[in-house]
């Protein structure tokens, strides 16, 4: 009951922060959707990091480490610590600059204008939302299993998921992006602090890190090396997965909240260390759990972190640590719900229903309605889904990462065309569906068992489609390019346009 009481108080604090943020609401759609582009360096660091830390990172990584050992850290954490800040440096800062100059609120608005194509925008909208749904599910499922575990089954999983949905619904719809960011900041600080406390408390109880590892060395020495659990090709090709951070709509929208490009500096510099601080405790505790709980299945592995907390740090500490797990779950979940609502409002209702003319009040109201609808659908889906959080996440990240060539081409490649982007997006959609059908039943699926992750193949194919599709079609119009590359001469593209016309007769 103590644990439950602490969680209730924690959720109350989260709710209060989110609702309080509404006092600073300026009443404009830009404020509701991108916090009026006012976030400074510290808030941007914490909120971007929080928005990218999911139940996948905390619960999923512990569960995967329980099954596969220490290699999970290299697979996802240290690779993310390298790739994600590099994506922010090259892509995030430039998207921010374009977004500020042209007033974008969503990624689809950018792609639609960049290639002057409504159809492409609509396709990217459908693909991004379809890939976002499993990511949303991770949050609801993580919340449900956590609450059940920390209350020893007193609260069923469906109640935990429902609680997460209701709390997020309240502060996201009322507080908009500012509410989401404020809560993210609070929750990220809680996550970082409580992650360290959990680690310290449990490891101390086990007699120190060395003694705890010796227990695993005696019972499951294979978990302390990569050995047969992870193949070298898997480590190499897994590096493609964090490219998804450059395509996630919620990350894109978060970039737009920055006050200036310089606000990205601490985000880029400190991101690898922040990731390590969250992942090290999760991975180590997941490995240590094998000595205490030798026979958990895949489904049980999702909650192994909570089980460790219950076993070694019961009472008040368990409640606080469970709150930390909740903070990780809600941190990204709220951003995703907000992003999906923003996209439905701006890219569908405003663009198609009102031809981009819609009052500020209408936009905010429609945004809220869609956020509610998205939460209801996600919650209902969570009741019938039984997949491992980690595996569900990897498939979702695979799809987003494979769209990375579209983003790179949009930002850097003047010669890229809507047909290239269309070919690339359709290639991703088709290959992703094929691989999911093929690999869905095999939890550790890699191509022909070689260790090569499907994301690497889809990424190569989508890059080839982007390049081939662009070079074989008419270059974009000079006036379109002038909007996105104001300092660069478009002469070369115009020359190619003349060449293209001559070839076509």
């Amino acid at each position, binding site marked *: 009951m103590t644990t439950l009481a602490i969680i209730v108080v924690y959720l109350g604090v989260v709710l209060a922060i989110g609702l309080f943020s509404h006092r600073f609401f300026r009443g404009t759609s830009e404020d509701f959707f991108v916090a009026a582009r006012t976030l400074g360096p510290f808030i941007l660091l914490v909120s971007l990091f929080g928005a990218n830390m999911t139940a996948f990172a905390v619960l999923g990584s512990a569960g995967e480490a329980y099954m596969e050992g220490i290699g999970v850290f290299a697979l996802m954490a240290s690779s993310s*610590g*390298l790739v994600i*800040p590099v994506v922010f440096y090259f892509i995030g800062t430039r998207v921010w600059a374009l977004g500020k100059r042209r007033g974008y609120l969503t990624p689809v608005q950018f792609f639609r204008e960049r290639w002057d194509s409504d159809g492409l925008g609509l396709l990217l909208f459908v693909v991004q939302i379809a890939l976002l749904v499993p990511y949303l599910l991770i949050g609801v499922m993580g919340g449900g299993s956590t609450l059940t575990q920390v209350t020893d089954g007193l609260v069923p999983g469906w109640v935990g998921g429902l609680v997460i949905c209701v709390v997020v619904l309240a502060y996201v719809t009322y507080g908009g992006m500012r509410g989401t960011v404020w809560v993210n900041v609070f929750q990220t600080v809680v996550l970082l602090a409580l992650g360290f406390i959990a680690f310290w408390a449990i490891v101390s109880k086990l007699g120190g*890190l060395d003694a705890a590892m010796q227990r695993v060395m005696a019972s499951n020495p294979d978990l302390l090396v990569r050995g047969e659990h992870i193949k070298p090709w898997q*480590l190499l090709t897994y*590096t493609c997965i964090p490219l998804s951070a450059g395509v996630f709509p919620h990350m894109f929208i978060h970039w737009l909240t920055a006050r200036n490009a310089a606000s990205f*500096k601490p985000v880029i510099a400190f991101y*690898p260390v922040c990731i390590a601080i969250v992942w090290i405790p999760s991975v180590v505790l997941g490995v240590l759990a094998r000595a205490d709980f030798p026979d958990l299945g895949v489904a049980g592995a999702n909650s192994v972190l909570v089980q460790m907390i219950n076993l070694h740090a019961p009472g008040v500490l368990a409640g606080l640590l469970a709150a930390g797990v909740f903070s990780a779950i809600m941190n990204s979940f709220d951003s995703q719900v907000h992003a999906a609502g923003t996209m439905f409002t701006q890219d569908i209702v405003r663009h198609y229903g009102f031809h981009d003319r819609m009052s500020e009040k209408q936009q905010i109201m429609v945004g809220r309605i869609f956020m509610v609808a998205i939460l209801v659908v996600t919650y209902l889906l969570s009741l019938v889904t039984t997949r491992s959080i980690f595996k569900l996440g990897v498939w979702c990240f695979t799809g987003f990462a494979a769209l990375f060539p579209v983003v790179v081409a949009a930002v850097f490649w003047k010669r890229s065309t809507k047909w290239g982007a269309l070919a690339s997006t359709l290639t991703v959609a088709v290959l992703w569906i094929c691989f999911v059908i093929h690999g869905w039943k095999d939890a550790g699926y890699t191509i022909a068992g070689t260790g090569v992750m499907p994301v690497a193949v889809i990424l190569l194919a989508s890059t080839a489609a982007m390049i081939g599709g662009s070079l074989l079609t008419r270059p974009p119009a000079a006036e379109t390019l002038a909007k996105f590359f104001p300092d660069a001469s478009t002469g070369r593209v115009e020359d190619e346009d003349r060449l293209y016309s001559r070839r076509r007769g």
Partner: protein
Amino acid sequence: MKGKNVWRGPLYAALFVLFLLHNDLWLWNDATLVFGLPVGLMYHVGFSLATGIVLTLLVLKAWPDHLDDEP
């Protein structure tokens, strides 16, 4: 017109070297404990710190200043 940034090339190269170093095949089956952590895990903790240092240099020495100057 601003001069060429001499830091940019070496720092981009350093990022590529980090990418290569991420694939530490030489520690694949080594279970030695270093400060209580398996060496394969400790290596990647150190890798994360090294990445942080290179990225800090990147934002300090090779920042795309023009982005804030654009209209």
